[in-house]
């Protein structure tokens, strides 16, 4: 922490980050890849008294174990593409983030905090039922990603905590992610859908998880659709019926990029593409 007087702090490990967070709380801005955080500063949205850079904190790792996967919070998106043994949904979401520089700078942890049209990795992780590992003055806490978003830019994290890793327990056997952008090779996410499935011996869904991104500030799970699938064999009829319920009761973003009507329709199309493809492969 040689630069402590300077305002640009480079703690060497999680303990040092936590002690800085305890002291500085929201006066300091945590910066991982910086792709969203630095814009908060350069656009003069915030004026932090200090920067806590995670560049030296050893949280860049992917650990694949027999029945779980753990990914360090500062792992760049590019590393997800190179790693073997990650669920398809996560790989596809990583590939969908465009351009060499962005893939190498943006981190998994940062993506969880960044609102729509970002959050592609968060959407895939939500469909994989990921759990967030948080560390703070009070020790370690596990929070399911499905319980992390409390409202727009409001997270279930305390002022002295940071995210250290995401964990996927019992990775689902099948998973997929699809998103739509205005242009083929780049552009903001208009809508994204991620689905994870485990089937029993008779081809019935033992576990079904469906996450939608780009429609709301942070991704959400379509619980109603998941219930419709659980214990059932997936048929076109069931899929079509479920698609109608994806955005039920959800206030979908309506902006210059796309109307809420368009986003809802698009989400249904992406959802059906994923599931038709799935049943067509048996």
């Amino acid at each position: 922490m040689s630069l402590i007087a300077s305002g640009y702090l480079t703690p060497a490990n999680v303990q040092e980050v936590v002690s800085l967070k305890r002291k500085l709380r929201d006066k300091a801005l945590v910066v991982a890849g910086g792709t969203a955080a630095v814009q908060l500063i350069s656009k003069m949205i915030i004026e932090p008294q200090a920067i806590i850079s995670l560049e030296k904190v050893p949280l860049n790792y992917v650990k694949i174990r027999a029945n779980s996967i753990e990914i360090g919070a500062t792992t760049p998106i590019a590393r997800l593409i190179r790693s073997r043994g990650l669920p398809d949904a996560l790989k596809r979401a990583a590939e969908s983030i465009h351009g060499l520089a962005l893939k190498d700078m943006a981190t998994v942890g940062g993506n969880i905090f960044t609102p729509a049209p970002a959050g592609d990795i968060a959407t895939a992780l939500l469909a994989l039922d990921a759990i967030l590992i948080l560390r703070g003055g009070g020790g370690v806490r596990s929070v399911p990603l499905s319980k992390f978003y409390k409202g727009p830019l409001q997270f279930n994290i305390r002022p002295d905590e940071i995210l250290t890793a995401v964990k996927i327990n019992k990775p689902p056997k099948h998973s997929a992610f699809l998103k739509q952008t205005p242009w083929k090779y780049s552009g903001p996410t208009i809508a994204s859908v991620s689905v994870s499935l485990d089937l029993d011996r008779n081809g019935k869904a033992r576990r079904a998880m469906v996450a939608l991104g780009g429609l709301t500030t942070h991704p959400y799970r379509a619980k109603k659709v998941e219930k419709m699938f659980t214990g059932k064999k997936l048929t076109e009829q069931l899929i079509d019926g479920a698609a109608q319920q994806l955005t039920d009761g959800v206030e979908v973003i309506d902006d210059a990029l796309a109307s809420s009507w368009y986003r809802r329709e698009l989400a249904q199309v992406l959802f059906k593409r994923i599931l038709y493809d799935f049943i067509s492969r048996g």
Partner: protein
Amino acid sequence: MRIRFKLDGQDVEVDVKHTDTLLKVLKDKIGVGSVNFGCGEGSCGACMVLINGRLRYSCLTLAGYVDGKEVTTVAGLARDGELSEIQKAFLENDAAQCGYCTPGMILTAKVLLEKNPTPSDEELFDALAGNLCRCTGYIPIINAIKSVAKR
């Protein structure tokens, strides 16, 4: 705060604020001509540099991050007044018109070819998705990169 780093092989020392971006420091404080300001939000790629060999948007990087590191701009690719192969290929293929995007295009191409010496069209387009060009229509740029990939 004072930071020290290598810029295109030369040692530099400069006073910065903890909230300054690297782009601001390079352009406004040091007067570097081989990086450009386009959007300031990661959308155009005109500000790209290599930091310890990795491709970075300097508009999304805080200056404090490069303390003790090596920053390379497109100007740093030339050796003893001789342009690098990829720079020559851009000239030969008329891949620069106004030249505003060229620093980022060349650095992206360099990093891509280091990782993947024979990229497919799909891989090329995906790699260049973070670099906008408003002049060339991209075809001469793609041709320039492919001409190096072939050699």
